[in-house]
């Protein structure tokens, strides 16, 4: 649910990075944080366990620039990927404007990708959203690893609707900003279209 403030002339949007555990969601945000000018970002907050696994969420506020005199601000969130944190994932999806689904390219993680994608659909549906109507993009991460599926294979399984998708190596930053720009663009385009929040 975007928030338009006519007084401060700001548009605020919420983007959630979703995907199986250890696919690289937190790493995406860390790279964005490290490569953004101090004046364009707020503090990155990570509610993590002692072993640096995401416990509740990571949060990064980001300013992307102005459109027609309105400052665009994006609040980026990641969800905890492990299956047993499902209740927390549902909470973080509330009010979402756009989703980045981060897939782990390793063949051994294909099941986990599919399960997480189904989980995303289910959790959105519970809140009256439909993934098909919600702006979303897909990132095939860990392209540098051995034992990975080809992008074509991943696409066939995870992206039947043909939404924008990107290969990435989040640890080096490859593909990270391309992914972010694509989702920001989809979210703003959806707002322009007069929709928003995927459920209308």
């Amino acid at each position, binding site marked *: 649910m975007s928030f338009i403030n006519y007084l401060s002339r700001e548009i605020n949007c919420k983007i959630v990075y979703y995907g199986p555990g250890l696919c690289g969601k937190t790493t995406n945000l860390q790279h964005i944080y490290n490569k953004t000018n101090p004046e364009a970002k707020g503090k990155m907050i990570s509610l993590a366990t002692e072993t640096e696994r995401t416990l509740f969420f990571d*949060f990064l506020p980001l300013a992307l620039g102005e459109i027609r005199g309105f400052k665009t601000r994006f609040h980026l969130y990641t969800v905890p990927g492990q299956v047993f944190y499902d209740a927390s994932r549902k909470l973080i999806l509330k009010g979402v404007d756009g989703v980045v689904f981060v897939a782990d390219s390793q063949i051994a993680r294909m099941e986990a990708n599919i399960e997480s994608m189904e989980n995303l659909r289910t959790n959105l549906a519970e809140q009256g959203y439909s993934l098909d109507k919600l702006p979303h993009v897909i990132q095939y991460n860990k392209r540098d690893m051995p034992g990975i599926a080809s992008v074509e294979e991943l696409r066939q399984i995870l992206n039947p609707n043909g939404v924008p998708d990107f290969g990435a190596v989040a640890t080096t930053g490859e593909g990270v900003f391309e992914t972010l720009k694509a989702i920001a663009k989809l979210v703003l385009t959806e707002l322009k279209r*007069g929709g928003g929040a995927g459920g209308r």
Partner: protein
Amino acid sequence: MANPQMVMYEEEFNLIQGIVDRLVREANAQVVFIIDKNGQLIAASGETDQLDTTSLASLTAGNIAATGGIAKLLRENEFTTQFHEGERANIHIQLVGNRVILVVIFDNKTSLGLVRLRVKKASEELNGIFEQLLAKVQDPDHETPFAEITDDDIDNLFND
């Protein structure tokens, strides 16, 4: 429609800011702020200079969301009030109309009793204003800055 969009106009903002300013004074609080349930800051007043209000807003919303999740598991309605007591700072969190969150940070210059009393009054007023806002947003004719945005505008955002 899962969630109506949150919009803030000058008229309502001034009313809200007035309530928040008054609450700081009347409750003798350090800081008062209002956020929506998604963690967007709506208004703030008091000694906000040293505070990272963006982070506070997101964490408070996360907190309310988590507590709301617990309430659901217990088949409770939302827990509408939370209070955390620290050594120097205390924080009082109030869910208003199940839509926005009113946060008061205060020290020992005041009392929980006074804060509660003032929050109650402010909540009632705020509830009315947010209902008015919602009605405006749901009016299909309400103005939007997006109608005039072109694809080029969006592209240009990323050309640096």
